[in-house]
């Protein structure tokens, strides 16, 4: 019983992390119909920015409890610097190209950003453990968990609920849904589709950066941390359905729980079981678990 509880708790923490990491990717795909590999770069940028800014914050003796705000702030700042640059500078001219070509373009950008990060922050690892240890720990079922992990769960909930409310409740959300449905018609109706794309890309990337920023205190930040997250996020959103918000949540939960179970019961399959589930979903329901029926072609 205790073990199952641990599996579930671990699974939830992992799911929360995955959700925050993947939600931006599915948002960008849903709105702009592009598979965005720079996602991993923004995750890394968030982690690095958080590491250096928060590290500086704490080193200067500012209140450590505010370091969480700094984590968030650094993610926001670094995204605002890079995302519009990428979208306006490169992607904007490529929307008419084939979706696979656009993916390759984001891959090229990813490669470039990997080295930009190295140029800015060097190759040595960064550690900022303070925010992680500051909140202490709590017990469930006889095992202790760092309270810090609850922050990520909190962020996941806020992000998920917030985005859903945004899409359904606000005028912005309604306009965004028209753009999702048909960018051409939206343009013809006078909606500034380009601005929506810019906002979506920035916001989606920001979510990835936030994921990276809040992961930074739990790991050593090194070059290449953005690499694995790309494929993992893909697995999550493919399982749930690309472009679907509830799908991303479902995908995150499934992957999180499956991985947690694997770690506890069958460690040998831990790495591949996620991609196995992804392959299964692709094989049987390529549109994901949350998908609408497809219209016929002829």
């Amino acid at each position, binding site marked *: 019983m205790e073990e199952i509880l641990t599996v579930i708790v671990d699974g939830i923490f992992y799911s929360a992390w995955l959700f925050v990491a993947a939600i931006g990717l599915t948002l960008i795909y849903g709105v702009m119909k592009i*598979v965005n590999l720079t996602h991993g770069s923004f995750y890394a940028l968030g982690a690095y920015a958080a590491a250096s800014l928060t590290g500086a914050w704490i080193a200067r003796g500012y209140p450590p409890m505010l370091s969480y705000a700094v984590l968030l702030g650094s993610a926001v700042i670094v995204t605002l610097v890079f995302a519009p640059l990428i979208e306006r500078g*490169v992607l904007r001219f490529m929307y008419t190209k084939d*979706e*696979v*070509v656009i*993916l*390759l*373009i984001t*891959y*090229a*950008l*990813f*490669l*470039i*950003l*990997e*080295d*930009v990060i*190295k*140029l800015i922050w060097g*190759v040595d690892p960064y550690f900022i453990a303070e925010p992680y240890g500051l909140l202490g720990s709590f017990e469930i079922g006889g095992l202790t968990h760092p309270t810090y992990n609850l922050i990520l769960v909190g962020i996941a909930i806020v992000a998920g609920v917030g985005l859903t409310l945004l899409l359904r409740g606000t005028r912005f959300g309604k306009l965004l849904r028209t753009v999702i449905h048909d960018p051409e018609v939206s343009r013809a109706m006078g909606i500034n589709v380009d601005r929506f794309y810019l906002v979506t890309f920035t916001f989606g990337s920001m979510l990835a950066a936030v994921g990276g920023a809040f992961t930074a205190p739990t790991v050593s930040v090194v070059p290449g941390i953005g*690499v694995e997250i*790309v*494929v993992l996020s*893909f*697995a999550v959103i*493919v399982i749930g359905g690309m472009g679907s918000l509830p799908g991303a949540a479902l995908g995150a939960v499934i992957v999180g729980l499956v991985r947690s179970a694997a770690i506890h019961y069958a*460690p*040998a*399959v*831990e*790495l*591949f*079981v*996620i*991609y*196995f589930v*992804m*392959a299964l979903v*692709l*094989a049987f329901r*390529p549109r994901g678990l949350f998908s609408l029926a497809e219209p016929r*072609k*002829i």
Partner: protein
Amino acid sequence: MKSDRTLIILGVILLALVVAGPLLPQWAMFLATIAIAKGLVALGLLLQLRAGLVSFGQALYYCIGAYSAGSLGRFFGIGDMLLQMLTGCIMAALVAYILGFLLARYRGIFYGLLSLALSMILYGLLVKSEALGSTDGINILPSTVFGIRPEQAWVRYAVLVAGCAVAFIATLLVDRYLKTPLGQLAPAIKDNEIRVEYMGASVRDAIHVKYVIAAALSGIGGALAATTVGHIDPDMAYWTTSGEFIFITILAGTNSVVAPFLGAAIFGIIHTVAFDISPNTWQMTLGIALLLVIVFLPDGLWSLFTRRKAA
């Protein structure tokens, strides 16, 4: 015909390599052999790309080829180069034959993502596999050719010659395939699958065949690379490895069966030079090169040559 001329060019280049080989420094032979190995994988990508399919997980078969070669040595004590390449080819083709039933049902992004997932599955399996060395990988036995072990100084050269021979034969066969009705179906499939079906051909079967051929080529490439490097590890199945192959194919373009080798050679040069100059910016160099090619030369570098000929 155009392709006959380019095949002759390839033949000449490979022959030149073989002839000049003994005079070349070891690192040059190394680079050339790796370029041939990766070129073979890219040739497989070309086959699929012509039908409109992008495989994001071709490293799967590259890795299967490599590990087949490694396993021959580790478990059977066989270090023969040609056997290694043959085994790599057959193992890859077998796996592809089975997986092809699944993969041939998909197109576009889903084909890409599914192939990616499959390659990552292999990665995950290998990392956790103690028998296959997990993250450390395995070292390959020193090479022999038909049971004869060349002297240490000549091993590299022997591998190069074997690589050149295999590459040339493989390219000839692929070129021949592309002239058959099934081979010619690729652009038709890309343009209009419905019409292809209504002409009486099975799109799924055609894609299945191309998938298997591509895998076989990648298996040979993987075995060759393994033999050249002398070491294999799970990274050979990682998605970034697949990315390299895609990069090479895009760089080269799909207009000629010779182009992938050109692309692999250029990739090798960029990688080596850029890495030497500044190890922290070689990825950036690749990324910029990829962007430039996509935007300004969508048909790849090879289109530079064909344009000149048309002029």
